[in-house]
C-alpha cells in the first residue's frame, strides 16, 4: 500500500528529520547510503583490529600472541567481516544507494522499503557474527568454509557463520534487485542507457552478478548446514559425499564476488578521474562493453581457484583460458583511464591520489592474477602467502583505495564541507606506503613456500614477516588522520558550495547536502556526464539547476 505525499506534506511525515533519521528505518536512498557507509566503516575498524591481531601474531615464528584456535577464529572473522560487512556493502550499498538515483534522474530507488530492509539485515548479521566469537567460539574454517574442515571444526560457530552469511546474502540480493529495477526502469524520460554515468553500468553489471550467483552460495550453505546439523553427507567424503562439489558451488559465487567488490570500484574511478583531470572519460562505449564482458566472463572462471582440487585437464585448460580473457576487458578499462588522464588538467588532490594509487596497485594485483591463472604457477603457490598478497592488492589496493577516493570526492556533496587536504594527503601516503610494505613482501613469502592461514612459520621468514607487520602498523596509523579529518571537517571544514569540483554529473547539480527528493525542481537531463573541456555553451546540458554555471563560461575556472 503506497500513499504518495506531495513535497509540502513531507515535513509532517513520520520519518525523523534530524540526525535520528540515520538510526531509523528511513526509506530515503541518501540516508540508507550513509547508513551503509558508516555501518560498513565501523565493521572495517573491527576487521582492521583483527588484521592487527594476525600481523602481531606473525611478528614471531612461534604461536605466542594468540592460541592457534583463536588465530583460526581471528582470520576467519577478519575475512568474513572485511568482505561481507565492509567492502560489499560499502562499494555497492553505500555509494550505489547514494549515487544511482541521482544518475538516473530519479527521486529514490525503485523499491525504497525493500532498500531499507536490505540495509537493516546487515547490523544484526554482523553483530551475530562478532558475538559468536565471545559466546560460542567463532568459525575456524576461513571465509571459504571448505568442508570437511567446516564440518569437523566446532559446530556452533560454523552454524552462526552460515546464518550470518545467509542474512548478508539476502541483503545483497535485495539490493541487487533494487539496482537493476532502478537503472533499467526509473530513468528520467529522455535519458538513454548509453548516456548514463559509468557507475550505473558498473552497478548494473554487479547487480546481475549478485542476482545470478549469490543464491547459489545460499543454497550451498544450507546444504553445508545440513551436513553439520543433520549429519547428511553432501560434502562429507566420509559419508560418501563430495567436497569438491562444495568448492565448485562456493566459487561459482565467490569468484563473481571479486567482481562484485571490484566492478563498482571501477565505476567510481570512472566518475572521479574525469572530474579532477577536466577531460571526458576516454572510450565510454568500450568501457560499457568491457563491464558486460567482465560480467559474462566472471561467471565462467570460478574453477581457477581449484587447480589443486583434482580438476581434470580439460577443466584446467578451459578455466585458464577464460581467466586470461578477463585481462582483455580489464586492460581496456585501464588504458581508458590512462587515456583520460593523458593531457588532462590534473589537480592532484586526495581523491585523485587515491585513484592513482588504485591504478598502480590494481595493475600489480591484476598481473599476479593472470600469473595465478596459469596452472603450473598456481600449483606452486596455491594456498601460500602469494595468494594473500594478490588478493589484498585487488580488494585493498583496488577497492578500498577507491572507497577512500570516493569519500574524499563526495564528502562535500554529503556534508556541504570540504575535507582537509593536508590531512588527506597524509592519509594517502601513510596508506599507500603502509599497504605496499605490508603486502608486496608477502608475494616473496609465498613464492618461497610460506603457507597461509597458519599461526606459525619457518624462522627463515621472520624478517620479511616483520616488514609486513610494520606495513600493517602504518595502515592502522593511517586511519587516524582520516577519522580526525572526517569528524573535524563535518564541523569546521571549508564550506564547499554546491559543486566544488565543477562536476557535470547530476548529483552535483543540486544543493549540498541535497534536499529530500534530490532536486527542488525537475531532475536535470544530463546527456553528457563527462563533457569536460568543451567550450562553454557547446554542451547540450538542459539541467534545470546548475545550468547557469555552464552557460556563464565558468566551466574551466578552477
Amino acid at each position, binding site marked *: 500500500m503506497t500513499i*504518495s*505525499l506531495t513535497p509540502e506534506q513531507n515535513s509532517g511525515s513520520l520519518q525523523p528529520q534530524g540526525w535520528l533519521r540515520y538510526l531509523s528505518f528511513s526509506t530515503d536512498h541518501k540516508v540508507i547510503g550513509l547508513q551503509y557507509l558508516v555501518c560498513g566503516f565501523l565493521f572495517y575498524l573491527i576487521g582492521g583490529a583483527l588484521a592487527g591481531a594476525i600481523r602481531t601474531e606473525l611478528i614471531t615464528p612461534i604461536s605466542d600472541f594468540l592460541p592457534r584456535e583463536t588465530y583460526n577464529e581471528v582470520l576467519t572473522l577478519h575475512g568474513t567481516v572485511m568482505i561481507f560487512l565492509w567492502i560489499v556493502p560499502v562499494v555497492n550499498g553505500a555509494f550505489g544507494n547514494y549515487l544511482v538515483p541521482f544518475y538516473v534522474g530519479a527521486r529514490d530507488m525503485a*523499491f525504497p*522499503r525493500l532498500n531499507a530492509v536490505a540495509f537493516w539485515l546487515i547490523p544484526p548479521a554482523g553483530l551475530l557474527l562478532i558475538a559468536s566469537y565471545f559466546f560460542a567460539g567463532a568459525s575456524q574454517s576461513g571465509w571459504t568454509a571448505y568442508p570437511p574442515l567446516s564440518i569437523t571444526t566446532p559446530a556452533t560457530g560454523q552454524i552462526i557463520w552460515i546464518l550470518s552469511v545467509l542474512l548478508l546474502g539476502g541483503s545483497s*540480493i535485495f539490493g*541487487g534487485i533494487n539496482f537493476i529495477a532502478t537503472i533499467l526502469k526509473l530513468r528520467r524520460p529522455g535519458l538513454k542507457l548509453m548516456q548514463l554515468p559509468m557507475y550505473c553500468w558498473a552497478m548494473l553489471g554487479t547487480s546481475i552478478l549478485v*542476482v545470478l550467483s549469490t543464491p547459489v552460495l545460499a543454497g550451498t550453505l544450507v546444504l553445508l548446514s545440513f551436513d553439520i546439523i543433520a549429519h547428511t553427507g553432501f560434502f562429507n567424503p566420509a559419508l*560418501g559425499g*563430495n567436497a569438491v562439489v562444495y568448492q565448485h558451488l562456493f566459487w561459482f559465487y565467490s569468484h563473481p564476488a571479486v567482481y562484485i567488490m571490484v566492478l563498482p570500484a571501477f565505476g567510481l574511478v570512472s566518475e572521479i578521474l574525469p572530474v579532477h583531470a577536466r577531460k571526458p572519460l576516454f572510450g565510454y562505449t568500450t568501457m560499457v562493453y568491457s563491464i558486460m564482458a567482465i560480467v559474462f566472463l566472471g561467471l565462467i572462471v570460478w574453477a581457477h581457484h581449484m587447480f589443486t582440487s583434482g580438476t581434470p585437464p580439460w577443466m584446467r585448460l578451459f578455466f585458464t583460458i577464460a581467466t586470461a580473457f578477463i585481462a582483455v576487458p580489464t586492460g581496456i578499462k585501464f588504458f581508458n583511464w590512462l587515456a583520460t588522464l593523458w593531457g588532462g588538467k590534473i589537480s592532484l588532490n586526495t581523491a585523485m591520489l587515491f585513484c592513482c594509487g588504485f591504478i598502480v596497485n590494481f595493475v600489480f594485483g591484476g598481473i599476479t592474477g593472470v600469473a595465478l591463472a596459469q596452472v603450473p604457477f598456481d600449483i606452486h603457490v596455491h594456498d601460500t602467502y602469494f595468494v594473500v598478497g594478490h588478493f589484498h592488492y585487488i580488494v585493498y589496493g583496488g577497492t578500498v583505495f577507491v572507497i577512500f577516493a570516493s569519500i574524499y570526492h563526495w564528502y562535500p556533496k554529503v556534508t556541504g564541507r570540504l575535507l582537509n587536504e593536508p590531512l588527506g594527503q597524509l592519509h594517502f601516503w601513510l596508506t599507500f606506503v603502509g599497504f605496499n610494505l605490508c603486502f608486496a613482501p608477502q608475494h616473496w613469502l609465498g613464492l618461497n613456500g610460506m603457507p597461509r592461514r597458519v599461526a606459525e612459520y619457518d624462522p627463515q621468514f621472520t624478517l620479511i614477516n616483520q616488514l609486513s607487520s610494520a606495513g600493517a602498523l602504518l595502515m592502522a596509523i593511517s586511519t587516524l588522520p582520516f577519522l580526525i579529518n572526517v569528524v573535524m571537517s563535518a564541523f569546521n571544514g571549508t564550506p564547499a558550495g554546491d559543486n566544488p569540483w565543477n562536476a557535470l554529473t547530476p548529483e552535483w547539480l543540486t544543493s549540498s547536502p541535497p534536499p529530500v527528493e534530490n532536486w527542488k525542481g525537475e531532475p536535470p537531463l544530463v546527456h553528457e556526464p563527462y563533457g569536460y573541456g568543451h567550450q562553454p555553451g557547446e554542451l547540450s546540458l538542459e539541467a534545470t539547476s546548475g545550468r547557469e554555471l555552464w552557460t556563464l563560461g565558468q566551466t574551466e575556472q578552477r
Partner: protein
Amino acid sequence: MTTLNHSDSAHGDHRLFGLATFLVADGMTFAGFFAAYLTFRAVNPLPDGHNYELELLLPTINTLLLLISSFTFHRAGAALRRGNHPLCQRWLLLTALLGFSFLAGQMKEYFALPFGLRDNLFASTFYAITGFHGLHVTLGGLMILIVWWQSRTGGRISANNPFPLEAAELYWHFVDGIWVILYGLLYLL
C-alpha cells in the same frame, strides 16, 4: 503506510519486474541444487544395494496437478480482469486445492520411499531438492489463500489493483516450472 517520504506514484509500478528478478535469483538456487545433483550422480556412484527405481505414478499425477493449477490460476486472473470476483475466487480456491493436493501427494510419496534423509548421497539430495520445492509450494498455497480472501467483492484486490494476484500468479507459474525440471531430472533421467 504513511512513513514513505517519496512519491511512488512519480514512476510506474515496477513491482512485478522486481519479483521477476527475484525469481531469477530463486531459480539460480535451484540451478545450484540441480548442478550438485547431476555432479554427484556423475562422479559419486552409490554403494551396492542403494540404487532404487522411483515409483513414477504418484509424481506424474502430481506433475499434472501442478500444470492444471497453473491453468486455473490463469483463469482466476482473467476473471478478475473482467471484474467477476466470485468466479475469480472459485478458480483461486480450486488452484489452492490442487496445490495442497500436490503437497499431500508429496507427503504420501515421502512416507512410502524406501530410504531416509541420511541413507546415501542420492537420498539426501532427493529430499533436499524436493523439500525445498515443497517449501515453495507451501508458501505459494498460503499466498493463494491470502489472495483468495483479498479478491472477494469489495476486497483489496480488484481489476484496478490486481498486483497481489498477479504476483502470486507469477510466483506460482515459476514454482510449477521448477517442478517440471525437477521431475525430469530426478524421476525421469
